[in-house]
Each structure stands twice: as structure tokens, then as C-alpha cells.
């Protein structure tokens, strides 16, 4: 009987597998648990939006933004990594620990809002690459305004608008005063 030959062969040859920790390390492109770099994050919430299993939650606060990740819910699909505009999200190359209670491994990263250079109130984080992608050529004026908080930026924009209208009114005037 062939099966007996196979079994005796297997027993004689000894096991061909290795005990758990001795096995091969995961591949380089292994999609393990997700980590986030708070220094890069824009608090845009795209990762929260694209995560199908709701493992990521981005909760904006007054002075900072809470970025929460629960590996217990994660399917390690990598969508958050693909969609983050500033590559703040990465996936570790290991399998992570086991856990007994749901939410046991939930971790929160706080993304602080930078202070507005004019009034000191919290402003949104910004990133050079995103700025370039959104506006093409970044003028010095825009670069200055991007650091401001929402209120100061609105003021600066209004002031610039007024100045522009004033200049246009000056240049449009005819010689005879009409």
C-alpha cells in the first residue's frame, strides 16, 4: 500500500518543518500592523475615510488631532498606506502580538496643531509637497499665508483683496476724471 510507504518514509526522514520561532522571517514587503508618523500627518482624515474595517479613527480636537488605530480590527489591506497623501502611514514588517480582549492593542497618536505665527492660535499642519500638488507654483505670499490659522488667513486674504481692488480702481480711472 502506497500510503504506508509514504508514512514510513516521512517518519524515517524526520520532520521537514521547524518549531515556531525558528521559521523564516516575514517577507520584506510584509503588510503588518500600521504605524503613523505624527510629524508628517496633516490630520486630513483620508486614512479614516478609506479604512474599510474602521480600524483608524481621526478625531479632530481644539488644539490637536487624535489618530487612533486598533490592530484588532485591521485587515492589513494597506489602503491607508496607499491613500495617505504625505506617506505618514507605514506598515511594520512583523506580525504583531496576540491579544485577548478586543481593543487591547488600540493606540492613539496625537497630532499637535502648529501655532499661528500671527495670533498664536492652533493652525492646520501643512506639507510642502501637498502644497505644490495643489497650487503648482507656490508664491511667496501663499507660502506665508499657509502657516496662518483660519482666522488670520481670512483676514490676510480680505486685506489682499481690498488692496487689489483699490489698485484696479486707481489704474481704471480716465484722465478726465470719469
Amino acid at each position: 500500500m502506497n500510503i504506508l510507504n509514504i508514512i514510513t518514509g516521512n517518519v524515517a526522514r524526520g520532520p521537514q518543518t521547524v518549531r515556531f520561532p525558528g521559521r523564516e522571517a516575514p517577507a520584506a514587503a510584509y503588510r503588518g500592523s500600521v504605524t503613523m508618523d505624527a510629524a508628517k500627518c496633516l490630520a486630513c482624515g483620508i486614512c479614516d475615510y478609506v479604512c474599510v474595517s474602521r480600524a483608524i479613527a481621526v478625531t479632530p480636537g481644539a488644539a490637536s488631532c487624535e489618530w487612533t488605530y486598533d490592530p484588532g480590527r485591521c485587515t492589513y489591506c494597506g489602503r491607508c498606506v496607499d491613500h495617505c497623501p504625505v506617506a505618514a502611514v507605514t506598515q511594520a514588517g512583523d506580525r504583531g502580538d496576540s491579544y485577548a480582549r478586543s481593543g487591547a492593542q488600540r493606540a492613539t497618536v496625537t497630532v499637535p496643531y502648529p501655532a499661528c505665527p500671527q495670533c498664536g492660535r492652533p493652525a492646520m499642519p501643512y506639507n510642502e509637497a501637498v502644497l505644490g500638488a495643489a497650487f503648482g507654483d507656490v508664491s511667496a505670499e501663499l507660502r506665508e499665508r499657509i502657516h496662518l490659522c483660519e482666522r488670520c488667513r481670512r483676514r490676510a486674504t480680505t486685506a489682499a483683496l481690498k488692496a487689489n481692488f483699490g489698485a484696479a480702481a486707481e489704474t481704471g480711472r480716465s484722465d478726465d476724471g470719469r
Partner: protein
Amino acid sequence: MTVVRGLISLLVFPGALFALPAGWFMMWLQRKINARAQGRIGPPFFQPFFDFVKLLAKEPVVRPRLQGFLMTVLPLAAVASTLGAIALLPVFPKAGGFSGDLVLLVSLIEVGPLCAVLGGFVSRSLYGGIGASREAVLTLAYNVPFLIALFALVASAGSFSLAGVALAAAWPVRVLALIALVACIPVKLHLNPFSAASAEQEIYAGSTTEYDGPRLALWELAHALEWVALTGLVASLAFPVADAAWPVRVVVFVAVSVALVVVLSFAAASTARLKLAQTARWFLLCGSGIALSALVVAFVRL
């Protein structure tokens, strides 16, 4: 059987204190033999124990109240009844038992599969339902030779007590009946070739598919105890060694049980799973044939 002796049988030997580690050991041995036959390294020695502890520590899935209750009570009943069956095993046949304990043993052994059938249906999983219906069909099928074989032993010994059967059954009857009984063990333990009820490649874990955490731990426990109960039943009937000192009887009981585990494991590793209808037909024709011949021998000799 005095109360103290009954308690010792239930809690110490061959009951809980012996049966738990023994059951885990048997499960480990079966998995190890299966692994080695397949060229794998197999689980470490304490793996069944680790699995049990790990499952116990897991947070159970929240279920509707009645369903959660049934899904806890059914595996608990399986554990309790199997433990009771182990306590009745005639390891020390001269020490007694009581008239009719064989009937009690058979019914206690049957509570486990019955709970598995009900447990599969209450889990409201498709796979659980299929596993449960298969389990039900197989339970009906193997019980024909199982009960005929036991009846042959009873007829031969002229007694409904396990001790009486272990001491007095005629050897030709006993050998035939034991062959039929051993053939029934793989169905109860879901081993190849009679493992259609938990065919993991098609219906995952069968009736326990939907179970998780502590509830699954209870099923695992019941399964471990079933190993001890069934191999122990055969061991105590095959080698009663009634006149030896008690350490000898214990050693013989354990050794025969373990030898049976080895035989069953190798049989499981070297066979393929039969279909449900094939399994049922095998038990109704071949299994019952062997058991019936035991019965015929028993009556002819009377």
C-alpha cells in the same frame, strides 16, 4: 459503590485529576503522530493545555441571551457527562460498581454527541447545522454496532454491570465485541476515515464552527475527556487484570489506552475521509456484522 469511592472515581482516578492531563496528552499524541506521519514537526507537548488556557482567556463574542446560554450549557453538559462516564469505567472491577451502570455509562457517553448536535443547530451557522446533521446521522449509524456489541457482552456475562462484564464475558465474544467497539471510536472522536462530521476542508469545524473563546474551550475539554472515556472503556474491558495489585491495574489501564491512541492515530493518518453515506453504510453493514457475530457467539455459548 460508596460515596467516597464514587467521589474518588469522579475527581481523582480515573476522573478529573487523571482524565484532564490524560486527555490533553492523548490529543497531543494523536496530533504529534499525525504530524510525524505527514513529515511535520507537530505541536509541542503542552500545546493542548496552552490552547485550552488561551481559549479560556479570550473575550467571548456577544450573542443573544438564550443562544449564549445554550451555547454555554451544551458544552458544559458534554464535559460533565463525559466525566461521569469516565468515573464509571471498571478499572477496578472487583471494587464493585452497581447493577446497570453499563446502561448509565452508555447514556452518559451519548450525551456528548447529542449536545454536539444541538450545539451545532443553536449556533445558527450553516456549517454548524451541516456538521450537526452529519453528527446525528453518524450517531445513529455507529450506535447500531456499538449497542449490539455491548449487548453481546452483557449476554455473555449475564450481567448489566460493567464490573460483571469486565470479569465474566467470554473471550471469543469479548474479542469480537471489542473490535466493533474500537471501530466506533473514530466516529466519536472525529478521526479519519469516519470524520465526516467535522470535515474541516468542507465544513470547517462542523458543529463547533461558530463557537469561540471559553465556549470552544469547553468543547475542547469534552473532546479530550472523550478520548479518555472511549479508550478507557476498551482498555478496561480488554485487560481487566482483576487479580493484580492496584498499581498494576492502573499501569495496564493507562498503557492499553495509550496504545489504542497510537493505533487510532496511525489508522487516521493513513486513511482518507469516507463520505457520510459510505460511513453510515460501513457501520450498518460491516460494523454491525462484527457486532452481530459477537452476539451470535454469545447466545450459542449460552
